[in-house]
């Protein structure tokens, strides 16, 4: 297992380097936005990866509630943590791009608001996990993950209607994309997904080790080690 992880990590590092090279030097310059558009190759893959990880979190939470398997809980925890990191990258790179292109850092547009609310929900999920130290944390967290997932479509509709009521600055929706740009984008997405898998895998191993250590420690104190 450990060898597979190392191989995957090396492969990911090469892929990330290649994707970086493609994004900065190979991809054609965008006509109106110029170089700042290249942040797109980091922004969009991060967003896709974050949404993928949040989906993994939901599935793992449901599996945990049904089967009560500690592995599913560890997967849920890890995917939420790494997902929040990727979502933060999305929320930080977005304004950096928006400032020169739209002239504003932030607008309460559908996708921006939805991403922000998703980020808030998952941060509150992590806060709950941090603040709850009983053995029931996985159960509470899994329930909260399901509540968060139920909330997403409602948030979507509320902002969708709000937005159609109050038109916002035009965003580069619709439109076609240069096939070379699409290639670079997909390459970056592949690299970022591999990166996410590597980080999650590592974090998962760490979490399982930590749990084993905690268990051994509490067992030891129960046995009553002689002074």
């Amino acid at each position: 297992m450990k060898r597979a992880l190392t191989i995957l990590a090396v492969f990911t590092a090469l892929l990330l380097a290649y994707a970086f090279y493609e994004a900065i030097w190979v991809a054609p310059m965008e006509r109106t936005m110029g170089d700042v558009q290249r942040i797109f190759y980091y922004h969009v893959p991060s967003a896709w990866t974050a949404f993928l990880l949040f989906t993994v979190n939901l599935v793992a939470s449901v599996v945990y509630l049904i089967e009560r398997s500690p592995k599913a809980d560890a997967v849920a925890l890890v995917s939420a943590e790494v997902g929040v990191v990727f979502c933060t990258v999305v929320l930080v790179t977005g304004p950096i791009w928006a400032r020169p292109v739209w002239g504003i850092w932030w607008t309460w547009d559908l996708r921006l608001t939805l991403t922000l609310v998703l980020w808030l929900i998952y941060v509150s999920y992590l806060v709950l996990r941090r603040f709850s130290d009983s053995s029931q944390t996985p159960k509470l967290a899994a329930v909260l993950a399901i509540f968060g997932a139920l909330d997403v479509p409602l948030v979507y509709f509320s902002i969708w209607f709000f937005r159609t009521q109050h038109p916002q600055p035009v965003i580069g929706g619709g439109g076609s994309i240069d096939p070379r740009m699409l290639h670079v984008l997909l390459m970056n997405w592949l690299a970022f997904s591999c990166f996410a898998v590597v980080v999650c895998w590592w974090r998962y191993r760490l979490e399982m080790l930590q749990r084993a250590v905690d268990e051994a420690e509490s067992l030891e104190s129960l046995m009553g080690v002689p002074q």
Partner: protein
Amino acid sequence: MSSLRSITLATLTKDIRLEWRSRDAINSMLFFSLLVVVIFSFSFDPNAEESREIAGGLIWVAFLFAAVVALNQTWARELRNQVLDAYRVSPAPANALFLAKALGNFILVSVLEALMAPLFMIFYNLRALGPAWQLIPVAILGTWALVVNGTFFAAMSLRTRSREIMLPLLLFPISIPAVQSMVEATRIILAGDASARFWIVLLLTYDVVFTTACLALFETILQAE
């Protein structure tokens, strides 16, 4: 079914009787939302036209904060003398307890709203330009949206450190669509410039979805110890 109803009623009447005798929660909520009204009106100093635009937000934010005061008290009474543990080992359905607590909070927050709404009208010189009767379904659905999840998350945060601060941290992100619907519906009704139907339907959907989720998952939360 009859045991569900009788246990719900018994717990609800017990809670209301206790609240009626002490009036701790309602008094602190009333005073708290009065303070919010006064502070908001100093901070914004709006004229009649502006206040119609912002009043929906002010009213609901004040009620949301006041509701958290009540929601945090929901389970505290049952923790003393291990009432909750006794409930756990009894054969009574868990949902009866949840429904009683949610309904109790609903009544409490509704009383608060009924007392505070006229005060808002006076302080902000409000007069609805749209169909004012629609504010009643908005208030009922909105209050239920806040208390149903609030009661549930209050039960969840019982098992955490510093539980008083946990409740808003869990409740507010999930409540964003509900709060937006209440605020928008109220603003539209007060300004009378469009139909608030979409927001009322969205609130109703929110209520149905989360009431179902709470009833389906409360047993898991109650048994978590």
